[in-house]
């Protein structure tokens, strides 16, 4: 479903070009969950951002199902994120002025794919029933991340991308959040690509990919 071929990306830093990705090849099949690991600066987050259309690659190709992501303009990339992807960040990135209920439905509403039954199931499975009227600042880190996962999965994306989703959580909460995410991914049948530093958490996914110095090791 996701096919990344020969992807390169470099940034200018202190007047020099620093190559972050030097030709990455990667695939994620439908229903497959993949952990992306590597040391700091290996390019994990950059790769995730490129797949999500948050940034543009220098060369190479990203294809999601029948769509060539790397050929899209800004509006096309926004449509991709809205209609086909779910994104979860380490910092949760919930909208602070919206309640949990509004945050949950936000992406599915703007994608025009709100499914009330699926929404109720998400609320149930994520244990958010009693938190719906609260604002993000009134939630713990684990609760916020559960809302973020719910928001990302509400429109039933093709692929869920998660960038260190448990980086701000303690071990027990991290395990709990990841278990919920995996269950829901299986339930929706979407692909799951997660960046993580934790070998323990990476081991719980179907496949592990390690990046080293900008290439798949």
């Amino acid at each position, binding site marked *: 479903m996701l096919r990344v071929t020969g992807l390169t990306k470099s940034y200018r830093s202190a007047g020099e070009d620093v190559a972050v990705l030097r030709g990455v090849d990667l695939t994620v099949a439908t229903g497959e969950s993949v952990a992306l690991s590597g040391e700091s600066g290996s390019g994990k987050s950059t790769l995730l951002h490129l797949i999500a259309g948050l*940034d543009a690659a220098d060369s190479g190709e990203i294809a999601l199902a029948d769509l060539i992501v790397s050929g899209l303009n800004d509006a096309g990339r926004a449509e991709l*994120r809205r209609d086909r992807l779910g994104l979860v960040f380490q910092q949760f990135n919930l*909208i602070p*002025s919206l309640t949990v209920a*509004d945050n949950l439905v*936000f992406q599915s*509403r*703007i994608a*025009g794919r709100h499914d009330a039954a699926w929404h109720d199931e998400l609320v149930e499975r994520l244990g958010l029933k009693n938190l719906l009227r609260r604002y993000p600042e009134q939630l713990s880190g684990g609760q916020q991340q559960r809302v973020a996962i719910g928001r990302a999965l509400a429109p039933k994306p093709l692929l869920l991308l998660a960038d260190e989703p448990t980086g701000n959580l303690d071990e027990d909460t991290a395990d709990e959040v990841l278990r919920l995410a995996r269950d829901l991914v299986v339930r929706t049948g979407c692909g799951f690509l997660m960046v993580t530093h934790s070998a323990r958490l990476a081991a719980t996914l179907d496949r592990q990919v390690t990046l080293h110095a900008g290439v798949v090791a």
Partner: protein
Amino acid sequence: MRRPLWILAVLLSHWRRHPMQLATLLIGLISATALWSGVQALNQQARTAYDRAAATFGGARTAVLVGKDSATFPQQLFVDLRRAGWPVSPMLEGRVQIDGRSFRLLGVEPVTLPSEVGNAPAVGRGRLQSFVTPPGEMLVAPETLRDLGLKDGDRPQANGLTLPPLRVQAELAPGALIVDIGIAQDILKLPGQLSRLLVGKSKAPHATLESVAGDKLRLVEPSAESDLERLTDSFHLNLTAFGLLSFFVGLFIVNSAIGLAFEQRLPMLRTLRACGVSARMLNTVLVIELVSLALVAGLIGLVCGYFIAAALLPDVAASLRGLYGAQIPGQLSLKPVWWFAGIAISILGALAAAAASLAKAIRMPVLATAQPQAWQQAQRRWLMLQSAAALAVFAVAAALIQFGDSLITGFAVLAALMLGAALILPMILQIALALGQRSARAPVGIWFWADSRQQLSGLSLALMALLLALAVNVGVGTMVESFSRTFLVWLDGRLAADVYISAASDQQAKEIKAWLRDRPEVQAILPGGRADTQLGGTPIEVLGLPDHTTYRDNWPLLESTANAWVRLRPGDAGLVSEQLSRRMKLAIGDHIEVPAPGGSWLLEIVGIYADYGNPKGQIAVNFAALTRHFPQTPLTRIGLRVEPDKIAPLITALQEKFGLDDRNVADQATMKRESKRVFNRTFSVTAALNAFTLGVAGIALLTSLLTLANSRLPQLAPLWAIGLTRRRLAALELLKTMAVALITALFALPLGLLVAWCLLAIVNVKAFGWRLPFHVFPLQLIELLAVAMAAALCAAALPVARLARMQPATLIRTFVNER
């Protein structure tokens, strides 16, 4: 369609969670729109009144033929011109005294009146007969009728005659009396004479003017502006400048609120982008949100503007009457265009204030992290550019002072000074705070100055608003105070007689004078008179002064030849008012030809006198000479020198004997009191606008401090963590605000004095024709400094009190939940 609504709902949710920020934004927009629209409403009201006055038989908007060198000319010229195909209509103008008060009498000939004269009195066919046949009709505006205390159909007395019955005509300008030309010739005792001929726009061929009238008549082309419009331009420019200043100060508030909201919403905007909202869609919705808010604020602002205008209208009307003799109705009536313009200005203002934030949103990369400090760093780079721009603007101001010579130049100098000062203010504050930091030794002291510098970028717009408001207050306050002081000294000299009488008619004046001659307490009877004529196409007054020591000793002259008063006696010399001398570039020794009924009157200028508050140019001549050259001059004005303790009984006796009321006879003290009251009222609108501007600047400071308060937590929390109490932090924050406000206020004082100098030396001279001496009033400056500090204290009080009472949990959150 649903997608934008969802995004809009998300954006609006920010305001629900930050109501104070929303209030700030709305207050900024409301005050900007209200003050601007209020001033525009006043201008519109006045312009409508000028149009009404101008439309009273042409005014300056119709071409006219006037006598080449005399105030009137024979009616036969009208007949000759009509026969030669000229579409002319005769008119006779003069002044009549009714009940001791002077009115403008216009005699017209309704059959030949050109149609383009405008909303001239509708002397319809049904009324034509009664208008032109004796006793005729006298058309007046409703205000004039009210003023006279008479009703429709009444027949007042004037010049010993019973006037035609009064008839109300709504579209007439107040103060004008319209009669048939034949009746006017009888009333004014000018049989067979005309003042001017209105020229219609007929394209039919006709003979040249010279071939019909020789050199007896002169054609005055129509002007797009009426005399009143020209005269009052400076006043309205002044009002508009105040309105604009308040508008910009209001926009400072909006800019500060939107800027901070944008910084706070950056994570939200990024999240929206990450969730698939395109940059175009996001910006479109941001604009829709802003326009919706501006629409709401604009409507509220318009309602406030209406009330501001209604509250200020009596003062504005008093100012226009006092300064220019313009009559403005006291009832506010607004056109639909005012409402639309108000909404448009609110929306455009909001978009302009938000332009930088919107541009940032358009360029915002999805992955950029929120950097609340980044704009401050960018601001530092701008500081140098801003200062360079300020120096360039100051150079422009200097060049304008050196080479400019018009009212517009005067206002341009003022605008350049204010803009330059506002631009250079952040640099001045930066330098002052850096000096403070250098001199500090204790760690908290060093932090105090350093943090003040860091906070500066967020406060600089509000401080600029404070600077401008204070400078305008100092400038206008100094100008008014200088004017007031000069005016009072001048008034003492001008109102030299002890009692002033305005008789109902020449006959009554004769009887009064005869009676006064037998009163031992009357030391001198000083007859006076005034005639209207034109000089160089502009209306002027010729004032007759009796040859008496009262005038020689007291009448203030700015310049004169030796024995100027003696030189007036033969009637071939005159004194000119300062505004006339400036307008016509007249100097001592020059000669002028004054058009008079009997032919032109040659006068040598032997002196120049101040004549503050008179919109018309004036020439003072010997009274006897005036009555020779203007025989129709009403002789109803009389001044008296009376033993001081006999003034009150004499006035009572005069009132009883001749049936005069307080308007017809007054003592010097009453006249001075009345003049001072009119003077104070003339400037009360300025004082009100000053207070509004300062108030809005105070709100700008308050809103900036409130909006900054939240983003200040990451700076303050570490200090609290290492042992500074919340109360001490609050005190330091208050001190910081007061310190920057004080530096700003100290900078505003010299700037304000410079503004006052510009107003006195450039703007007043060009606008009114008089130059006033420049005085500095230290007490007034200290008072304003105190007001500025009080405004800063009020503005800082709320955020500081909040900080002092802040729960530790709120401060702790800064460490655990930084985003």
